[in-house]
């Protein structure tokens, strides 16, 4: 968690504090942006856009306690804009280095590749919700507050995203999964949330 005092100093225009803030949040924001966009150049552009906006709007941030959620909101919005912009451009898919090939590893690689392909077919809004929930570790309520959308909307996006991803493996969605309004099976984050240092 970024110290409140550091945020307040940066909000007041302290250049050193702002630089520390950039160092503290650049990594988690970039890693989240990459996972939404699945492309490093676009993720870098999105993060730069997010920081540009952060610089402009930081003095207007009313509650330093909400800095982290606000920073994620900026980067998700920038990623969404970036995805829509790059839609018209040719896509370059980044290849990950292949692991040693054993029978088990081959099955694992095939499954990961299938998941990668299925993930790329999701809309960027849906990808963002999946990343915030399963990678950043936000609860549905936290995502709703971060993105400023209704709780039910987040649940709906997660529901359809998971349904699409599971369909790539011929899996049905378990009864009630992702239906946030009825108590989601995904309410508990799958991964401990990585907070900015």
């Amino acid at each position: 968690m970024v110290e409140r005092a550091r945020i307040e100093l940066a909000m007041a225009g302290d250049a050193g504090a702002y630089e520390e803030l950039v160092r503290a949040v650049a990594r988690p924001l970039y890693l989240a942006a990459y996972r939404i966009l699945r492309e490093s150049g676009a993720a870098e552009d999105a993060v730069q856009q997010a920081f540009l906006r952060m610089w402009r709007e930081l003095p207007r941030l009313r509650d330093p306690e909400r800095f982290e959620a606000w920073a994620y909101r900026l980067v998700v919005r920038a990623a969404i804009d970036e995805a829509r912009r790059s839609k018209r451009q040719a896509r370059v898919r980044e290849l990950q280095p292949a692991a040693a090939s054993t029978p088990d590893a081959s099955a694992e690689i095939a499954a990961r590749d299938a998941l990668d392909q299925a993930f790329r077919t999701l809309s960027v809004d849906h990808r963002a919700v999946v990343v915030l929930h399963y990678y950043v570790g936000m609860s549905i309520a936290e995502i709703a507050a971060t993105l400023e959308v209704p709780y039910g909307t987040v649940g709906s996006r997660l529901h359809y995203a998971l349904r699409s991803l599971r369909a790539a493996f011929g899996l049905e969605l378990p009864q009630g999964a992702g239906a946030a309004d009825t108590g989601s099976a995904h309410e508990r984050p799958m991964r401990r949330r990585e907070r900015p240092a």
Partner: protein
Amino acid sequence: MSAPRDFDRFLAGWLAEEGPQEVPDRLLETLLADARRSAPPRRWALPVRGRSLSREGIGLALPATGPAWRTWIVLALLAALVAVSALVAGSLRRDPLRAVADGTIVFEAAGDLWTVDPVAGRATPLTSTSDTDEGGPAWSRDGRSLAMWVTQRGIARIDLAVLGPRLEVGRSLRAPAGLVLPPHRRIAGWSPDGRTIVAPVRGTMTDGAVTRAGVELVAWFDTSTGEGRLLDLGRPAWSFGFSPDGAWLGIASGSELFVLPASAIRAPDPAAQLRRLASIETTGDDINSDPSGAWWRDDLPPVFSADSRAVLYLVNGAAGEGDLATTGGGGLRRSGPLRTDDRPRDTDIRRVSIDAGPAADLVGGSDNDLAPAVSVAGALAYLRSDARTTSAAMDQGGDLWVSPAAGGEPVQVATGVAAGSLWSPTGAWLGALTVDRASLMLLDPSGRHSPRSIPLPQGAASFTWQPVVESGT
């Protein structure tokens, strides 16, 4: 290919492991270089707020040592500066809060409340506190009292104040037991008779076997006793507002819009009297997928028509396809296929009768139409933007249009307007933030008077226009 046994774990693991684990050095260097070039702009502040001016702040290179006469000159300059500052402070503080014919505008900026003096063409601070954050001003309907959201060390309360030559705080309203008033920038709603205030609170809510904490709820307060209670609607409430006649409280909850008779606020089971006006079905593709939200935003309460018989709200659709149609019960259903992946959003303003009749587009078209504001006479002001998304439209601003109350073609009254507009109590003037949020424009929709522009401090928000105080009452 076999399916993973634990799909959720597989998905979480894939997200964690596939892709970089560190930020690229070149990106970090670029960001740091940007940061060094451009630290955030300093908060706008007047010397009257008691902040000392640093040497860097006033650009003086004070000599560490030097001839005595130079030191005296510098000290004399400083003394002159202090004297001028004191004069400015004194004049600002002595300035009576002049209520112009159309009432005083109050807004928040940098943790204080400010007023706009349209005659003098300037904004002046109404509070100047360093340990509390005042925001969310809301005038009572009679224009005599001002509610403000005060946050001190993270604890929020609502102060009720009377605005005379100074702001005199009368009563403070605090969160009822088991509930929390969320800190910063919330806005309370006055009932028209001034007896009741409704305000957003956070608390726990049980839905079947699931208990959720931090749920957005509503509390009501008796302004004469200060007593507060949960308005138990059996559901979260995202935003709310009273109708002009005071008979109804409009409530946005999730994807549904309700009205509650104001008489039910203090009744034993208010949820039983909730009337659902509209809902947006989210089966299939998610039609509400714009990150900015729409009428669910805290600062966009349901807007009533001037006659209090209908509520205006926003719907998001995709431009040119999958237009929304109404069902008999006032609900909304897509009439065609709707893909939301990368299509531009088309936000329209919709009107639904409180008698739960069918909803209908009030302002449609392929642009984003946002931020409806209704004058006392029924004229509708709204923002129109051709930005690709609703969130971009909210950020980048748009053109301000007015539909006359008497009917006829809408007219464009301004360009480059941010966030929406604010009618004066008589409907003679329209206030609008410029898109750089640096000025408040006062516009005469009839075109008889020239626009006035008033510079604003940074971060100005939450404008409220004082209702006309009737003399002799």
